[in-house]
């Protein structure tokens, strides 16, 4: 798969369609794949990587890239990235005519923590498409079931569909029945005290590095309220429990109805806080209360928070619905 993507990247540059291509490059470690801009054939051949660890979502870079002069920018987008890509177009953030989007079929990205948890030691590298993954280690090659080491968001992938791409490498996929709300349902079933303890445990580890905000395609404000001194809630470092809650509640609220559940926030969080569970809670509520809605699925339906029905449920529904042992 990597060969076909690299060939496509080179072809885009050579044919003059684009003068630069957004792709992935191996970072410090093989599993630490970082996004990169390639402008020449040699660079692509040398560094371009498309393997089981290319989790980065390119669509947010396209906000700035699509506004630059010169030819189009080529971009490789996984199915979940294309949802963010369309959502950003819907919000007029990406100038579609300056972008040449190539959809890439994806079998799900792996998570190095899961690989380690699978008991494999001394890992040097891993590659391979299809269901098995060959892992190069100090003690020879091992192969492992790809499903077992998939990242959480890929294990319950919501859709392999490539939306709004100029071209597709590999086959077009379909929306999938995903069990992504199980974890949220488990949390909802807890008592309020247990939930409070769980979230205090998680959010107290937050060091306010803003990685989640910087990577989130829905969080693309010119100037964020938390950086704006006269917004009234500016805070650079959360000094106590309240400000940690405040930051994550307000951020989740701002992306509610626009978050495509791409899972990037949890992937990049250095403290491994399951931030996606916050956004999924809003998505689950919206689906239950206002009808199924997938952000970025199409260009015209109005996001749920910018829409209403005369017979929406009353806010007191939260009181009756919640479990209160």
């Amino acid at each position, binding site marked *: 798969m990597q060969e076909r993507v690299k060939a496509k990247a080179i072809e885009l540059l050579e044919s003059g369609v684009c003068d630069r291509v957004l792709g992935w490059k191996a970072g410090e470690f093989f599993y630490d794949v970082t996004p990169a801009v390639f402008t020449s054939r040699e660079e692509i051949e040398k560094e371009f990587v498309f393997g089981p660890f290319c989790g980065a979502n390119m669509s947010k870079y396209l906000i700035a890239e699509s*506004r630059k002069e010169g030819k189009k920018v080529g971009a490789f987008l996984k199915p979940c990235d294309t949802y963010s890509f369309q959502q950003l177009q819907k*919000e*007029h*953030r990406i100038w579609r005519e300056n972008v040449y989007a190539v959809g890439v079929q994806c079998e799900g990205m792996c998570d190095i923590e899961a690989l380690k948890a699978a008991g494999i030691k001394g890992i040097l590298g891993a590659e391979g498409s299809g269901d098995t993954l060959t892992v190069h280690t100090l003690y020879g090659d091992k192969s492992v079931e790809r499903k077992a080491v998939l990242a959480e968001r890929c294990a319950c992938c919501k859709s392999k569909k490539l939306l709004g791409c100029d071209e597709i490498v590999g086959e077009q996929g379909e929306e999938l029945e995903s069990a992504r709300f199980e974890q949220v349902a488990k949390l909802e079933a807890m008592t309020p005290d247990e939930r409070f303890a769980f979230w205090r445990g998680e959010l107290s580890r937050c060091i306010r590095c803003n990685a989640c905000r910087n990577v989130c395609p829905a969080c*693309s*404000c*010119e*100037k*964020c*309220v938390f950086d*704006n001194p*006269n*917004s*009234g809630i500016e805070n650079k470092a959360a000094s106590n429990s309240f400000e940690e809650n405040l930051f994550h509640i307000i951020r989740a609220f*701002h*992306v509610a109805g626009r978050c495509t559940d791409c899972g990037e926030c949890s992937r990049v969080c250095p403290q491994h806080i399951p931030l996606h569970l916050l956004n999924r809670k809003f998505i689950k509520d919206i689906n239950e209360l206002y009808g199924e809605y997938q952000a970025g699925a199409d260009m015209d339906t*109005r*996001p749920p*928070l*910018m*829409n209403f029905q005369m017979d929406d449920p009353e806010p007191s529904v939260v009181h009756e619905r919640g479990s209160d042992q």
Partner: protein
Amino acid sequence: MQKIGVFVCWCGSNIAATVDVQAVSDALAKEPGVVFSTNYQYMCSQAGQDMIQEKIREFGLTGVVVCSCSPRMHETTFRKTCEKAGLNPYMVEIANIREQCSWIHKDKETGTEKAIILGRAAIAKVQLNAPLTAGQSPVVKRALVIGGGIAGIQTALDIADAGFPVDIVETKPTIGGKMTQIDKTFPTLDCAACILTPKMVDAAQNENINILSYSEVEAVKGFVGNFSVTIRRKARFVDETKCTGCGLCTEKCPQKKVPNEFNLGLDNRRAIYIPFAQAVPKVATIDPNYCTMLKTGKCGVCSKVCTAGAIDYQQKDELIEREYGAIVAATGFNPISMDKFDEFAYSQSPDVVTSLEFERLMNAAGPTGGTLLRPSDGTHPHTLVFVQCVGSRCDGGEKGKPYCSKICCMYTAKHAMLTREKYPDTDVYVFYIDVRTPGKNFDEFYRRAVEEYGVHYIKGMVGKVVPENGKLKVQASDLLGGQQLHIDADMVVLAAAIEPDKSARPLATMLTASMDTNDFFTEAHPKLRPVESPTAGVFLSGACQGPKDIPETVAQAGAAASKVIGLLVKDHLTCNPCVASSNEMMCNGCSACEKVCPYGAITYIDKDFRGPNRTTLRRRVAQVNPAVCQGCGACTVACPSGAMDLKGFSNAQIMAEVDAICK
């Protein structure tokens, strides 16, 4: 630093009884920024107001806090007071320590403590107040009336009388609307044409009124006082300026088989036609669907015959754009279609007609020249059955309309009376559920039909009508007689429900005017503002707002005209200054605010900003139109970055109030 004056009112004993006003003014004197604090028996009295003005000049106050009754009571009074003293009226805040403090707490100590907190909140808010000036937007001194029926004509005449130019846009080739098709009117039995045509001629001759017949509204942009409307003048293929209305072409045209919609298809007309004799404008119109010249290019009889040379086959639709200060919707009504009421065999026999068709049969200019003849064989009908509430008062949905159409009882009584008067040998039955005659002289009119003209009014409904060898076998229940009637009728007239004109729904979306589920325009307030739409600058006249008869329509048309005159007489519209405003530096251009704005006050422009190292960045930013924005604030919450803020109730101000309260 702000210089704030605090004025605590006793309100006689209303406040002073349960709040220690002296303690309040002393406590608030210590607040930061407060340079003067006092209390007085009646702040809203002339003496109280003079004291405020005096203190403003003496201390050079930049902000005033009045702790008194509800702002809904005296906010405007204190704003005017400060304005006279030279302080911007929006630098005043009211702390409600009467309805929301002194009157609801018996204990003086808690009352005083709460009054101090509310005072502090008001001071915190006034610290962040910015001087606001009510914006102004110019008013275009011209009105647009959409719909040329009696409602539109009457509205236009009244507006024109006040000296303002008016355009009437009518989709049909002539103005006049439904009333031109009516024979006589209730309760006075005036001939409809005799009382309508003079008004049509007035409208034509009035130099303030410009009639755009055979035209439709294509698009409406802008806001109250500044609407810009695109009107499509449909191609008539006849030059209005040249045509004298002699009607020669309408006699010579070879295409004779065109169903005449003016007579509801009961007879035919030519491809080139003038709807009726007193049409205004009296100009021929070519029907493109039937004219052989336009379809195949082989004919041209009318242009050869026309002495004035007014025929022009190449004429195209023309789009004109004009500015208006106010728009009146007068789109009128239509009877509903009868195809869902097969139990009355409307589609199976030509002798089953709707009331409007019956009007045409009775009308001298109608298909039968005024003598009532059966459409099937042209014979004289002896037994007539009128069926009331056909499609009205139903269950809604495909059963029919849930409302009562209001005018059918009266016009059926009129039809029954006229039939019995003209043809005493006829038997007239009217099947009704309730006869509703609420107007002036209405019930007397109905009683005359029963007592003087012997119309048989039977309480019960017709179950079914079966056409059988030339007769219509009507089977109905007679509830009071407790029997089932079988009548062999010669004609059955259905009092069909009325619904708004089909053009009303698209027009409402263009005007962002709201509609109810039956497609009638919603009024700003059902009882207190019945002729205005919630959308500023849009007014409602006639049946487009709900079923009504001619007297009510004319009354409402006058009311709508007076509202329009009230608007157009102003040179400027002062608009509420507490409106949203967007900080372009922080705006993402993501149109979240535009989607939640109920008034469509937000538009977007691409603007160049200075980028890093001398590059220019072109960004899409939001623009709020202060004249249209009503200041609800929905956009300020939809905007994630806080770029959108509301003057007078800004994020910082509300946060300051929250801080002052919770401290």
